[in-house]
């Protein structure tokens, strides 16, 4: 086929793809995306997994290693069939946090650390370089195959020139496709649709070649099976380590490859699409690999010895004279290569610009307001990144010589990106995973990958000398790149995979266990691990700033999102806050929304840094957390204090209430006493006045005079006694009483008291129980006063004991230096509510006038006992009224 025709066909194909992308973006802009955002398009776009490596390389792989090529598709099948475990969470987090790339995901999870973003970006770029080289190689090879057949038209340029042209063409194409504009959430509807179209083209092409082989050359499936059994491929070598290792590797790669992450997570417009993709994508790759073995077998059978099996898809139809089919196959391979290069370089360029160029630029210009048009800067950096990435791929292609089998190059790349897996899965499922652990694990795994697989891939003597390869660096044999720690029996690829992933995971775990995460990291960790619990509700701790902050934020947002979009966003937020205009209050919630929005364009770390520049603080610091904790502690302490105070108040209120009750009762008593005492005073006074009037009138018989005089005398005595009592009490209370201390027997005092008290109600006969031996106590005290107390108590008993056969028990006890004397009668005692009153002045329990006293007796007793250093109290719980007198055996220091 003429070379010029081939070029025209390829160009026409690219232009038609460009038209598809253009039309779709137009429709998306006017909101008519419709079916373009269907699960079908999503699933087809995932087919960037199947690159030119799949398209051409799988057949070659099958021809060399039999069914082992299937591992590359079985791994992704397990991951997609198990979408409920990982993919669902990944997509949910990607949407919640507006993740722009896999580097953004890792950096965002580990506290928006840009260092991690840079590490992952560098790793991805390095790992993608061989892969891009692979695409260049396959396109160059396919051009070479096609154009060699004829000599008419343009002369076929040699491979070097072709590869340069292919590289340049792909760069232009990708820049035109991927960086036409800067999307708010980094989604490229047009590109995705174009990728979906390419997916259809490559599927149709491969299936067409497969059908031609099965039904055109061979005679149906049965014949193919027979040919397989007859061919040199009838048997294949199943190496268990490679089989499981490669399944694991491809499973890891399908979520870690930047381009897969781009279409799987970043371009996802609806989580439900994942459910469809969970079975549709495995179906797609199954169909892609269904005809690989037949093509390989028939190719080996029909093609001349030494033909490159990597190109059977192309050369087989060509050899059979099927020019049209070969053209379709060429376009399929071309599609595979271009779709991979486009998506991979868009994903990588996003990472480079968000994690390397933007932070660098921000650090150069730490001014608060962001000057210049950031959008143009970002787009420019992305375009340059795309060019640089493709140039790197080209360089790798040139250096590695482009001679190796396609499959082995792809696998090197897979092992490189698989190093991200521990940090990613750890971040999704383990809250304890920390930044330090992730950095260490990534760097270590990546270093081992470079040492054991990437550098040796350049060929002998290219990067590592043959001596290092066979004897190890500095002659240390257990550090040989392909036999680390003396493990020699392994396939080099599996060896590199085993050691890099194992050590990576171990160091990641160990680093996480011993390090301590920052507050932002912990917040992000919780938000990622518990992604399904709830919509993340902030916790970033932006503090509200003044009105000026909002304007600065708007200026910055306009430069990143574009004028219309930024204004629209700010207006909507202002409306939500109930404000008119374009400037919402910069509340914590608003700033967080804005950060998410910006993160969709420039990545979480950069967005965070930019907002920090304007708002002026970076999220929560440890001090803030401490302050919050302190505040909480203070509040708790305060409430405890309040509680305590309340208890005290309750207590004193109760005391006050008691006191008040007592006072009220006393006041009532006092009133009663006043009327009583006035009555008591008045009665003798009345008779004194009456009799003295009669006496002054004269003319009285002398016996009457004597009689009346006696009455007056007695009444005067009564008055005097009453007044004496009152006087006595006041003297006792004021503490100025003179005590006459002497040594006297308790028994004689009780005898005297009983003698005196017998005058009170002498008609009642009391049975007195005494404890005569116990009474043999000599006390040093004022015996007259004490006897007075005893008299009072005994006569009270005589007066108030209401028993028919009254009894009085007097018991004496010595305890330590004190003596207690109990007076217990067998009456009904004193009711509980009155017990606290009986020692008060003027207290009278009954209105019984028979008692005749003024209610001062017990009050005087109490005062006397206080003066004698003792007490008198009512003993509750006896069978009758009971009083206990307690006094010291020796009163040492008489008052006054």
């Amino acid at each position, binding site marked *: 086929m003429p070379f010029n025709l081939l070029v025209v066909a390829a160009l026409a194909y690219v232009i038609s793809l460009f038209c598809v992308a253009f039309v779709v973006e137009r429709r998306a802009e006017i909101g008519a995306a419709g079916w373009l955002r269907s699960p079908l398009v999503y699933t087809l776009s995932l087919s960037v997994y199947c690159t030119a490596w799949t398209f051409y390389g799988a057949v070659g792989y099958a021809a060399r290693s039999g069914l082992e090529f299937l591992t590359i598709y079985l791994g992704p099948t397990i991951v997609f*069939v*198990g*979408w*409920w475990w990982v993919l669902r969470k990944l997509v949910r987090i990607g949407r919640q946090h507006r993740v722009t790339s896999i580097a953004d995901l890792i950096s965002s999870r580990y506290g928006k650390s840009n260092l991690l973003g840079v590490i992952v970006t560098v790793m991805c770029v390095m790992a993608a370089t061989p892969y891009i080289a692979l695409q260049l190689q396959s396109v160059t090879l396919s051009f070479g195959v096609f154009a060699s057949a004829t000599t008419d038209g343009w002369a076929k340029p040699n491979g070097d020139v072709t590869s340069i042209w292919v590289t340049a063409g792909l760069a232009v194409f990708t820049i035109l496709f991927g960086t036409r504009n800067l999307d708010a959430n980094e989604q490229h509807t047009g590109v995705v649709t174009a990728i979906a179209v390419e997916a259809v083209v490559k599927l149709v092409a491969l299936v067409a070649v497969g059908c031609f082989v099965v039904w055109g050359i061979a005679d149906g499936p049965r014949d193919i099976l027979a040919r*397989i059994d007859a061919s040199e491929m*009838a048997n294949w070598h199943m190496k*268990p380590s490679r*089989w499981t290792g490669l399944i694991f590797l491809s499973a890891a790669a399908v979520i870690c490859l930047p381009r897969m992450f781009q279409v799987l997570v970043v371009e996802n417009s609806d989580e439900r699409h994942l459910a469809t993709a*969970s079975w549709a994508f495995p179906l797609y790759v199954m169909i892609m690999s269904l005809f690989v073995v037949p093509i390989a077998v028939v190719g080996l059978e029909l093609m001349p010895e030494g033909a490159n099996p990597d190109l059977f898809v192309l050369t087989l139809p060509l050899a059979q004279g099927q020019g049209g089919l070969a053209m379709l196959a060429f376009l399929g391979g071309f599609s595979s290569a271009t779709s991979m290069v486009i998506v991979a370089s868009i994903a990588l360029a996003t990472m480079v610009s968000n994690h390397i160029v933007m932070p660098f630029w921000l650090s150069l210009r730490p001014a608060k307001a962001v000057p210049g048009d950031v959008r143009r800067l970002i787009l420019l950096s992305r375009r340059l990144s795309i060019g640089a990435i493709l140039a790197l791929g080209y360089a790798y292609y040139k250096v590695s010589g482009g001679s190796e089998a396609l499959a082995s190059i792809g696998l090197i790349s897979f092992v490189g990106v698989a190093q991200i897996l521990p940090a990613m899965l750890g971040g999704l499922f383990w809250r304890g995973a920390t930044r330090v652990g992730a950095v260490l694990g990534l760097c270590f795994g990546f270093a081992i990958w470079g040492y054991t697989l990437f550098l040796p891939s350049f060929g002998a003597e290219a990067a590592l000398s043959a001596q290092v390869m066979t004897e190890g660096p500095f002659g240390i044999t257990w550090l040989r790149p392909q036999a680390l720690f003396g493990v020699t029996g392994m396939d080099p690829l599996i060896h590199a995979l085993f050691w890099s992933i194992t050590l990576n995971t171990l160091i990641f775990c160990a680093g996480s266990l011993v390090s301590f995460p920052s507050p932002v990291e912990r917040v992000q960790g919780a938000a990622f691990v518990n992604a399904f619990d709830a919509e993340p509700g902030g916790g970033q701790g932006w503090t509200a700033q003044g009105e000026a902050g909002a304007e600065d934020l708007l200026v910055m947002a306009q430069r990143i999102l574009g004028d219309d979009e930024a204004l629209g966003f700010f207006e909507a937020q202002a409306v939500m806050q109930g404000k008119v205009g374009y400037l919402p209050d910069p509340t914590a919630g608003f700033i967080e929304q804005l950060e998410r929005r910006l993160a969709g364009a420039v990545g979480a770390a950069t967005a965070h840094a930019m907002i920090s520049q304007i708002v002026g603080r970076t999220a929560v610091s440890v001090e803030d957390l401490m302050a919050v904790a302190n505040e909480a502690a203070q509040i708790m302490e305060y409430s405890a204090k309040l509680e305590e105070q309340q208890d005290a108040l309750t207590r004193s209120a109760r005391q006050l209430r008691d006191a008040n009750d007592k006072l009220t009762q006393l006041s009532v008593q006092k009133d009663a006493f006043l009327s009583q005492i006035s009555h008591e005073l008045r009665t003798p006074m009345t008779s004194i006045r009456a009799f003295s009037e009669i006496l002054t009138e004269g003319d009285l018989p002398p016996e009457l005079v004597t009689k009346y005089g006696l009455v007056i005398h007695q009444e005067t005595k009564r008055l005097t006694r009453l007044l004496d009592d009152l006087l006595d009490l006041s003297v006792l209370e004021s503490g100025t009483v003179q005590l006459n201390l002497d040594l006297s027997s308790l028994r004689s005092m009780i005898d005297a008291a009983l003698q005196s008290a017998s005058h009170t109600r002498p008609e009642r006969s009391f049975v007195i129980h005494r404890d005569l031996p116990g009474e043999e106590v000599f006390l040093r005290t004022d015996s007259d006063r004490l006897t007075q107390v005893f008299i009072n108590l005994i006569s009270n008993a005589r007066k108030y004991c209401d028993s028919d056969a009254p009894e009085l028990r007097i018991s004496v006890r010595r305890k330590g230096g004190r003596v207690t004397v109990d007076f217990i009668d067998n009456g009904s005692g004193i009711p509980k509510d009155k017990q606290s009153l009986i020692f008060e002045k003027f207290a009278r329990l009954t209105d019984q006038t028979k008692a005749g006293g003024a209610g001062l007796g017990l009050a005087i007793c109490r005062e006397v006992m206080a003066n004698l250093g003792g007490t008198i109290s009512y003993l509750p719980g006896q069978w009758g009224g009971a009083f206990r007198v307690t006094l010291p055996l020796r009163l040492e220091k008489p008052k006054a």
Partner: protein
Amino acid sequence: MKRPLFLAPQTYRQRRLRDAARILPVLAAFLLILPMLWGDEASDIRQTGSDGIYLFVVWFLLIVSAALLARRLSSEPDGVDAASPKDKK
């Protein structure tokens, strides 16, 4: 957080459906690694034809089961996710 001991039959079914979705990849891995154990112990030579048929049949069955599960799972009402037991501690 305390979860109820007994669930309505429908909720119970959905939970088991999710369990099935989680078990499926484990089953897939087992079935796809199984061919390692075939053949003579001494040699690692295998038949391309029969192994290929086995692998593609398993593959196809996995796709069919995944499709059935995905249909049932995606018809769940929204918000049930939030109570997904896997994601709760």
